[in-house]
């Protein structure tokens, strides 16, 4: 699948934003703290920029208002509705935290649950698509949710280190969240070898009983929407290299930095390392999300001789 930047930024930024908002909703930062106030500000910023980025993906955005209408059947519609609904508690809590230094416990829980439901809906946009076997698994939702929490935890750790002189147990929580998320992602990635799931060129053409089906001629000489959108190719060796970069930046660098920061609580080094961990993690997530799209094979490639996505 074509890795569109608008959708990569949409999923990574909203993921981190909702994760941060959920952790703040759980009351992991005292509302009197500057980091809680800035945390809400940052969470709302990430969510808003991410959602705006998603609209850049649309061919005809003037009809986007209709996207809130089909929540009964469509995960994309549910995501849209939940994103709007979630703005209410997050904004109210941001207001009470920033201006009144007050956290409303029950509303925090409502907010956190709505945040996670929104991320789940985002993940289901992809996980519900049968034509893309790599995505069509509960592991897609698991990794989206876990990455969301991990991203929020890394950001909150940095905020606490920066403004409160120490982040307490937050680095530990962040490291655990990172490891758990990447374990889910590792299982997800193992499914690359399953290719198209049950579909083959034989089942796509119904001609398998006659012998081995090969494409002799494509229906069109040049590219079209299908080959550009679904026939994206990424060289196998590049994919492997990028996967290593994603793991390095998304997991290893931030985890090691947060572990050192935990040991040196309160020092300038700890602050510095916590902040660098955030940037490393976000870079890792962007690479991870690029691969999420780029390595996904779409069943329609079978009509193009399976070579449209031949990973070489």
């Amino acid at each position: 699948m074509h890795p569109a930047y608008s959708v990569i930024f949409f999923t990574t930024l909203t993921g981190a934003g909702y994760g941060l908002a959920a952790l703040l909703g759980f009351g992991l930062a005292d509302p009197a703290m500057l980091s809680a106030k800035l945390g809400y500000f940052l969470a709302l910023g990430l969510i808003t920029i991410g959602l705006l980025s998603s609209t850049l993906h649309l061919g005809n955005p003037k009809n986007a208002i209709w996207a809130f209408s089909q929540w009964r059947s469509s995960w994309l519609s549910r995501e849209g509705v939940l994103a709007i609904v979630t703005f209410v508690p997050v904004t109210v809590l941001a207001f009470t935290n920033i201006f009144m230094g007050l956290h409303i416990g029950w509303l925090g829980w409502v907010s956190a649950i709505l945040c996670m439901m929104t991320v789940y809906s985002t993940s289901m946009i992809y996980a519900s698509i049968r034509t893309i076997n790599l995505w069509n698994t509960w592991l897609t939702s698991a990794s989206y949710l876990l990455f969301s929490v991990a991203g929020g935890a890394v950001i909150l750790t940095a905020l606490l280190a920066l403004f409160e002189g120490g982040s307490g147990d937050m680095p530990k929580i962040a490291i655990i969240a990172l490891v758990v998320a990447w374990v889910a992602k590792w299982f997800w990635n193992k499914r690359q070898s399953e290719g198209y799931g049950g579909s083959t060129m034989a089942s796509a053409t119904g001609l398998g009983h006659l012998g081995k089906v090969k494409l002799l001629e494509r229906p069109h000489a040049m590219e079209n929407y299908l080959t550009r959108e679904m026939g994206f190719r990424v060289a196998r060796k590049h994919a492997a290299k990028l996967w290593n970069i994603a793991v390095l930046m998304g997991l290893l660098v931030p985890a090691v930095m947060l572990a050192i920061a935990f040991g040196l609580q309160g020092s300038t080094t700890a602050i510095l390392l916590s902040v660098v961990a955030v940037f490393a993690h976000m870079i890792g997530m962007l690479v991870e999300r690029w691969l999420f799209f780029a390595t996904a094979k779409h069943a329609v490639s079978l009509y193009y001789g399976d070579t449209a996505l031949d990973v070489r």
Partner: protein
Amino acid sequence: MTTLPLATNKKLGLVIDLDTCVGCHACVIACKEWNTGGYGNALSDQQPYGAEPEGSFLNRIHTFEIVPEGGEVIDQSADSRVVHFPKSCLHCEDAPCVTVCPTGASYKRAEDGIVLVDEDKCMGCGLCAWSCAYGAREMDISAGVMKKCTLCVDRIYNETIPEVDRIPSCVRTCPAGARHFGDLGDPQSDVSILVAERGGFDLMPEQGNKPTNKYLPPRERKPLSDAVNAGFETANADNVGDATGFFGWIDKTLSKGSSNSKVGEK
């Protein structure tokens, strides 16, 4: 409304004969011609006369080569065969393109099962095209909305055109008679009978879309190598040992009085 109708009485669709399709692409052009001026936005082309021309089409012809086990491709007595493969929307009963649509633009008609896009609602998110296993939906690059086969809904019920033309443009134009249109929900319809007789099948049944359109398999054919060898046998006097009829008579006559019993006998 992007929830699917529980059931549709009529299931209008196409039956495509992979035995007779000659791969001329006439239906592709007839489809483009009708639909660029009909339902919704035009089917745009990008750089039509430029270096990399491309455009939106609702019907495309792929061509496959099928090589049976042990068959050679290059050898003169090749057993492989070529099948031209027209592909357009199959108007699936369990159409995932409809249920994923967030705007309600994609819908399946309860009265006849046709799957359509309301371009006044489509926001061009492309999710429906992602969900279609058959590549039956293409986003129009200039209009930014999703295009797909309408089963020529603006022809088949159109009383302002002669009755013979009230079938999809591709079916009307096919010079090989490889495309058939009718109600696949009625077991007595011509198309249903054709499907039953010829063993019509679904594309990618494992995807669970329950397509309405059916494909008829290429008919049985003797391996090409048999035909080639048969030709050699009759032409080769060394090989007429068990010939009958005219060649048998010549064989017998010419063999008379010869010490050899029969030419070619081992």
